[in-house]
């Protein structure tokens, strides 16, 4: 979806930071359209304001990949199905996972991690 013209906007407060950091919240103003998902807004931010924002997602529409979870207004949600509202929305990384950066947390199964491979091949 490209930039949407319209009067309504949503304010996204997005947690930024790395592992074991206190972090901070950045606030982004995003053009709002009915039906938009929180993921749509995060992708909009990356395209138009701050491409360094770390987010994880894959399927965008299908709600099939299940990789896009974060805490939206204190609830764990798939950001691709969480509806955006033209108000203030707070997005944080998942609580029980270690943070990789920003909204990306460690959701990779242990046996699929590079560390395990490097150990096996003795690096």
């Amino acid at each position, binding site marked *: 979806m490209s930039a949407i013209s319209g009067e309504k906007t949503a304010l996204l407060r997005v947690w930024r930071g790395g592992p074991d950091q206190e972090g901070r919240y950045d606030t982004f103003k995003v053009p709002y359209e009915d039906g938009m*998902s929180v993921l749509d807004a995060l992708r909009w931010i990356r395209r138009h304001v701050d491409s360094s924002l770390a987010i994880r997602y894959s399927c965008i529409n*299908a709600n099939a*990949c299940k*990789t896009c979870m974060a805490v939206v207004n204190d609830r764990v949600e798939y950001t691709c199905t969480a509806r955006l509202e033209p108000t203030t929305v707070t997005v944080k990384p998942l609580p029980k996972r270690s943070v990789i950066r920003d909204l990306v947390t460690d959701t*990779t199964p242990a046996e*699929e991690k590079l560390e395990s*491979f490097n150990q096996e091949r003795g690096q």
Partner: protein
Amino acid sequence: MYAAIAAARNGSSVLLLDKSLVGRGGATIMAQMTVAAAISHQEPDHWTLHLADTKEAGRDICDGVLSEILCEDAPKRIHEMDQWGAHWAREEGHIKQVVAPGHSRSRCCYVDFLNTGPAVAGTLRRQVSKMETIKRLSNVAVTDVLVHDGQAVGAVGLDVIEGEVVTFEAKAVILAAGGLTKLYSRNSASTNMAGEAYALALWAGAELIDMEFVQFFPIAHLAPRLVGMDPIMWDPFRYKLGGRLLNGNFEEFIHLYGGSDAGKYTAVRDLASYAILKEVEAGRGSPHGGVYLDFSHLPEAELRGAFGPVIDRLLANGIDLTKMPIEVGPTAHYQMGGVRVNGRMETSVNGLYAAGEAVGGANGANRLSGNAISEALVFGERAGRFAAEQARHVTSAWNARLAAPAVDQVRTLQEHKGKSGVHPVTLQSELKDLMWENAGPFRTADKLTMSLARINEIQRHDFTDLAISRERQFNLDLQDWFELRAMLTTAKAVVTAALARTESRGAHQRLDFPDSDASFVKNQVLQLKNGRLTVGWTPVVQSQVKVVEI
């Protein structure tokens, strides 16, 4: 994943790399419709009938070897997936099969409810995880295939979590990185379908075939925003129920373009796309640049009967079909062309294989619905099997020095201070718009030439000075940069091929050459020679198999 399973059970130790999480990142998990295979459960069928239908849709240019393999092997793969617990929908003890457009028999298997893709992906994931000789690695974006003396010897990847370069030694490499529809601003793709397999193949010295044939789905969902559903879901409902297509003034319009409808399956689909885009061009589109699809003339009971639980999912999305139309329009959906392989899935580079949507040729100029997942399973099994055979016979020609340029590339990028202030994701958006406007469903020499010039300019100029943020962990700018590098190569391949085929056939529609031309019953082969894309033509290997009438 099928390739990994097949290679492992044929004695190889396998590394399965995915830039996303293994088995989650691509198109497979998103598919909600069907898988085609002539298993004769619903009614008598034969793989040669499936082949005949595939060839009909492919408009005379299917690669006979590949389409025969696809249709003949599909039943084996469906049965194997069944044993692995795919849970194909059943009735009265047999696997249930339905007719999808273009298929002459009830041939298409599915998993309830709209769960085909997740079930296929889940089954393969489970199977992969049971095999001790497969090592899965998520979060590794492959950036280069390494070739030494004409032999694929490994790959280089970016560890997206830590921002490190990783190198992999291998006796055989299989490209199974899916399709390219992310090249277009309107697409049904996941974020990982950037056409990287095609670029990796070209850079490694392999050939691509028939890259001009991108399938555009005429009535994909545009608005209102719909989440949790396949954007191409409307087609069967429109056929089944007689949904009406209306322009922005709520008038029917398809009949205005009826004169040019050749009455063929593909023509019908292409006609809908054409009519929609013409209405939009004339200022009679819907607000989101498509047209309306309207079911409101139908009684609610009939809608419920046809849509089943889908109607509630739509309501959850704020869509009440009894009261409102939705907006639909053409969207990039699948790539028929791709890496050129033989029946063993070998490319022209020794030790380099391809599988799945990355492979070109089996479906010719247009693909039947349900053939893509069959193809992914069938070609995957073969690629794995033959790659394992190769691995048993070669000695590794790996040399760490081969990886040095690719490793340096990442390091340089991490140090790079782009002065342009433009980030890769922004340039990706421009490329996607460029491709949609100029190399989309309807093409002309002028627009294709213009887009080729711009792609060249981007490669030479804009791409060389992009701004990349400095973070190490999960740096999407860096991922986007590598993706964009591949997208540019692949986009150029599509545009070059589209320009050279001066006729219309199947999914490749040239407004300046609206008719099919018998002299173009041939396949187009692209290769990189000294950094330049060269175009060649090769006669179609026509299947000689006779249809077994039953």
